[in-house]
């Protein structure tokens, strides 16, 4: 799933999470397919962002998964001997992999690694 500014929403995209106004009011539920009318209504109700299924938009400045993981590794360089922080780093990496590629992908990845 991907969170995108409402301006980049296009008909045909499917909401992965409910669309909520800044006031906290739910406008449409997860699974709703966006149409021109729905998008117009969301804009009118001042919704700023929506979360949609898949990864349909390449946002400016958005990093790819590989780059994100490389930078994660780099940030941990000074604490790489701390077992707790090492575990935290692994958890974050796995979390990002699942978020972008899904749980199955992570399981496959783990299998190929242990082999």
């Amino acid at each position, binding site marked *: 799933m991907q*969170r995108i500014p409402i301006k980049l929403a296009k008909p045909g995209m499917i909401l992965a999470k409910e669309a909520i106004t800044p006031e906290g009011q739910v406008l449409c539920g997860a699974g709703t397919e966006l149409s021109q009318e729905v998008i117009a209504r969301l804009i009118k109700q001042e919704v*700023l962002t929506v979360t949609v299924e898949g990864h349909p938009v390449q946002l400016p400045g958005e990093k790819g998964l590989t780059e994100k993981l490389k930078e994660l590794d780099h*940030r*941990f360089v000074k604490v790489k001997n701390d077992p707790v*922080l090492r575990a*935290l780093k692994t958890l974050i990496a796995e979390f990002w992999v699942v978020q972008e590629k899904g749980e199955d992908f992570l399981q496959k990845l783990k299998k190929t690694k242990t082999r």
Partner: protein
Amino acid sequence: MNKEEIRQRLKDVQSLPTLPPIVSKLNQMVSDEDVTAVKLGRIIEKDQVLTSKLLKMVNSSFFGFPQRISTVSNAIVLLGFNVIKTLIVTSSIFEVMQSSDIGLFEHSLGCATAAGIVAKKLGIKNPEEVSTAGLIHDLGKIVLRAELPEEYEQVVETAREQDRYMREVEKEALGIGHGEIGGILARQWNLPERLVYPIEYHHNPEASPDYKEISAIIHFSDILIRALGFGFGGDKWVPPLDHNAWNRIKFGKKDMTHILEEVDEKLAELQDFTLDIHKDEGTES
């Protein structure tokens, strides 16, 4: 410049916006036991600019309140007076930071978000207070930057060139760390100790004379938010973890994953909040 000179300098900080006059009035009122949230709210609401800033902060996603808070007295009831007072005292500082150091601003909002989520997970009574401590934990950096811009620039530059923690360089060059500086200021502003100690000891939480658990939460939230690469806290390195502090709060894999999920979601919402700020700036100018 040594530690004493810096302390002196902080006594009359001139480069930061002065405290709103309303603060001393509120302080007086709070020491009066009969004062109610409604009364306090009424006083604050006389200042419309302050009120709108305050409501924007309390409704931003790092507090994570499901319903909209629409009046100041409601905010006081729901979040506690400590939180409201701190937000009032620091509101002008955050304005400075938003324009001068967006990276540190995001780091602070991120830490506030993480701290609130961790505090809730631990069942702490007033998680919003812990969030607020997270919000201002790097207060010392903001002061340094505003009051001693050249020295601050030098510290950041040296840390970058030598691939070191900013905190190390700062202690070496100034003889005092940003934690201690933040503590001095927070105390000067009469913030409660529950907030002063976590600010002062967020890099060495076990040295805190009190509120060690809150200090440990801020310590860890700072690490977590840097680990996630959200915002910029002065250098790019994940700081060392104090294991005694960790033992006070530690989470297993399952809880930690939940925390990550929640933090991730709130951080995305935070971007709405900062978008919102920029939008307002756009319409005002």
